């Protein structure tokens, strides 16, 4: 049986190289994310840990999704071969064993290649993290011996589980199918597809609902999960959509022979189209879902600040400024940015305590001036009691009114009593400390913004000039815009870390699927040429079809991504009082153009090389 696997391997290398590649990249990506995550956790880089957690999740998901869809596709492509085996006397179990042993072989091969590749990926990923400032420059992830076992488990696991369902279906291939020219099974919408399609659709709808209740912290992972589940659902249901898109193409290209042929081919190759579209659906859903969420949160923060802040000018400086004493200044509210490490200790029972540390960016404020420049009222407690070792927290911090937060400010441990709870916010700043809780030396070094309100009738120009001696002066509007663009840089950084390599993986999977699909169509292309199509027309036909498939991926992926925006729209409405959905048009444009370009170029290249031989030599060959 293994001998047969091996000889099939040599015969259909495109299928197997493609499948091995997906395993290899998946293993590399998961291994790298996991190693970096472990190192980041040891180093206690909280921001990086959260990011890497999501990255790891997406990598693992993509590995499972892409490998299983590729393997299922390769099995479907070989239906005729398998029927032939059945005709020659293979039992169902033997067909399954053949496919499973192949999957094991490919899984091992993919792992063997994936582990060293993972080290390269790890280098790239940690460079990215350092470059974007999520970890310090000296951060270097460490190799762990046990990762080999994990990687092998992932490589073998995804390969075998990917082929499990497909092999069961393949074992039901009837021997008679070997005698028919078209090996494709008529029924593509299997019960399993319906089941997973509906299950995941329900899952993603509930995630969207949950994300509408989430705070800014939870919104990103929830949106990512919603986008992923929606992508799975729509990939499973995509055979339903293929004919629909085919019809649109048919109408768009009415009258053209190639258009009609492309439509007919789409119709005929529903499984092929669906398989090619699957990785694209995930890629587009992830990109749009995540960037839409990040942009919307950023925009909501801006909306919030515009509504909440009452002031005219903002001075950016270090430590406290003498802005209050400048003539024409009514109120000057300084806020100092100060990193604070909080520890939470919870009693686990049996004399065991669990301690959790968290780094937060606290704002050190003058409570009276703060109240006069901010409209938001505490939901509990009062800012007037913010004196001495006290703190005001936001509602999603997990510290109720009256409890004590153990904080480390500078090099001093300070217990801070919660005296006020502020409403949840997208703009950030989860903790307010009074000036007298912080040692003067620490405060003097902290970067600060001072929000200034002018006295009635004051000369704005003169005051602005006078404030210039303390630091950089901007109007409130300018300052909000600037902090928004800084926020956006952070968002782009987050996107790059989470989706950079994972996106690349999905993109390679798209190319892979196009190549696999074309490799199986040599004979069909040859027949088309014998019936009068020129080589150029065949290539154009392949291009048209692949664009139709790309369109399917884009539409469904866009749908899945946009679905997640519903949740974020509801969340921003609840927290910021105004539903904010930012559609990432630029990214959308880039994705559409990029997908058409990549898929188009791949299909032109594969169709061109598949039509290199004279048609007669291929159309005549039975195999």
């Amino acid at each position, binding site marked *: 049986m293994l*001998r*047969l696997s091996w*000889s*099939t391997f*040599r*015969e*259909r290398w495109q299928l197997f190289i493609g499948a091995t590649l997906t395993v290899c990249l998946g293993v590399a990506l998961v291994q790298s994310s996991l190693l970096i995550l472990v190192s980041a956790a040891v180093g206690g880089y909280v921001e990086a840990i959260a990011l890497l957690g999501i990255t790891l999740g997406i990598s693992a998901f993509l590995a499972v999704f892409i490998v299983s869809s590729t393997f299922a596709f390769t099995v479907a492509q070989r239906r005729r*071969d398998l029927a*032939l*085996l*059945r*005709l*020659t*006397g*293979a*039992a*169902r179990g*033997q067909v399954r064993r053949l496919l499973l042993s192949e999957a094991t072989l490919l899984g091992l091969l993919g792992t063997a290649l994936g582990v060293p590749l993972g080290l390269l990926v790890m280098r790239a990923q940690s460079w990215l993290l350092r470059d974007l400032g999520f970890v310090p420059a000296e951060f270097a992830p460490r190799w762990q011996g046990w990762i080999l076992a994990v990687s092998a488990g992932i490589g073998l696991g995804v390969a075998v589980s990917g082929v499990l369902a497909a092999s069961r279906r393949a074992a039901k291939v*009837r*021997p*008679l199918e*070997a*005698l028919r020219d078209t090996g494709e099974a008529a029924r593509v919408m299997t019960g399993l597809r319906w089941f997973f399609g509906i299950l995941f659709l329900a899952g993603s709808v509930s995630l969207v609902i949950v994300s509408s209740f989430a705070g800014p912290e939870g919104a990103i992972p929830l949106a990512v999960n919603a986008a992923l589940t929606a992508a799975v659902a729509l990939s499973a249901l995509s055979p339903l959509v293929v004919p629909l898109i085919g019809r649109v193409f048919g109408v768009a290209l009415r009258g053209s022979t190639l258009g009609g042929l492309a439509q007919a081919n789409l119709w005929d190759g529903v499984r092929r189209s669906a398989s090619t579209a699957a990785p694209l659906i995930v890629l587009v859903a992830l990109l749009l879902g995540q960037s839409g969420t990040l942009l919307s949160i950023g925009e909501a923060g801006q909306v919030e600040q515009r509504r909440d802040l009452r002031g005219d000018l903002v001075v950016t400086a270090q430590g406290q400024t003498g802005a209050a004493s400048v003539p024409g200044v009514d109120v000057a509210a300084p806020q100092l940015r100060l990193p604070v490490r909080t520890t939470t200790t919870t009693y686990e029972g049996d004399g065991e305590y669990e301690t959790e540390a968290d780094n937060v960016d606290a704002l050190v404020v003058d409570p009276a001036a703060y109240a006069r420049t901010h409209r938001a009222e505490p939901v509990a407690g009062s800012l007037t009691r913010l004196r001495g070792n006290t703190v005001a927290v936001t509602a999603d911090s997990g510290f109720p009114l009256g409890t004590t937060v153990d904080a480390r400010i500078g090099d001093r441990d300070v217990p801070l009593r919660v005296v006020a709870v502020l409403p949840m916010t997208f703009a950030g700043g989860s903790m307010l400390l009074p000036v007298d809780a912080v040692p003067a030396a620490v405060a003097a070094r902290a970067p600060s913004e001072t929000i200034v309100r002018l006295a009635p009738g004051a000369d704005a120009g003169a005051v602005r000039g006078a404030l210039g001696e303390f630091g950089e002066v901007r109007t409130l509007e300018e300052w909000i815009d600037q902090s928004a663009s800084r926020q956006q840089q952070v968002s782009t950084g987050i996107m790059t870390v989470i989706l950079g390599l994972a996106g690349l993986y999905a993109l390679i999977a798209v190319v892979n699927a196009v190549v696999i699909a074309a490799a199986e169509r040599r004979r069909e292309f040859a027949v088309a040429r014998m019936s009068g199509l020129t080589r150029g027309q065949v290539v154009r036909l392949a291009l048209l079809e692949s664009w139709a498939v790309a369109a399917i991926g884009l539409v469904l992926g866009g749908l899945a991504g946009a679905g997640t925006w519903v949740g974020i729209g509801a969340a921003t409405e609840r927290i910021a009082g105004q539903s904010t959905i930012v559609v990432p048009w630029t990214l959308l444009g880039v994705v559409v153009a990029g997908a058409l370009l990549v898929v188009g170029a791949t299909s032109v290249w594969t169709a061109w090389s598949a039509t290199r031989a004279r048609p007669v030599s291929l159309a005549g*060959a*039975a*195999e």
Partner: protein
Amino acid sequence: MTAPLSTELGRRAGGGPAAVELRDVSRHYGTKHDLVRALDGVSVAFAEGSWTAVMGPSGSGKSTLLHCAAGLERVSGGQVLLTGDDITAADDAALTRLRRSRIGFVFQSFNLIGSLTAEQNVALPLKLAGQRVPARQVRQVLASVGLDERRRHRPRELSGGQQQRVAIARAMVTRPSVLFADEPTGALDSASARQVLRLLREMVDRAGQTIVMVTHDPAAAASADSVMFLSDGRIVDHAAAPTAAEVAERLARLEA
């Protein structure tokens, strides 16, 4: 035309059960309102050691008859017996066992596995059956189709006629009681076709092989012991040892 509904073909050796027997077999496709009767109450027995050609116009049900007789397709009504055993309701495992031991197939499009050499293709049915494969046996079978020299070649390195002979060797390696052949000469030039037919003739004459062969080609049909004519899913005529010209003439009458 007087169409005999039940037909017995070929010599009966010693009155044992026929190699294959169809009893009132029907095969319908489609829905109730749009019913296609591919086979409509066909009864026929193929005697052991006989070579029968099945002919008829396109769509007459030739291939369906072959598929039903070989257990590749389920019948809608009637019974199929293989050396007296009813295989009508056999499950997949039982049919798999039949394909391994008692039924051999040869097709127009050869259906060899492209990645395996001639030798490996021939050995495949035995391997799938979990048997030890003596190299000598495989070589013997390949030699009997005149391809011992080319045993290490892959299908694409062989001519059509050679590929078909490998396919015959593969079908014969399990010593099946019946060989089903679907247009075995359909894709071959006339010289290769003659060679293949000569090979089949030898198998019948020397080893008493039973062959049921669907064909379009009157010359191929004339090599068989007898010819059975189908039209619209029914047996409409049969002829014992006709010449090619007689076969062509009867076929032309059917197609008219």
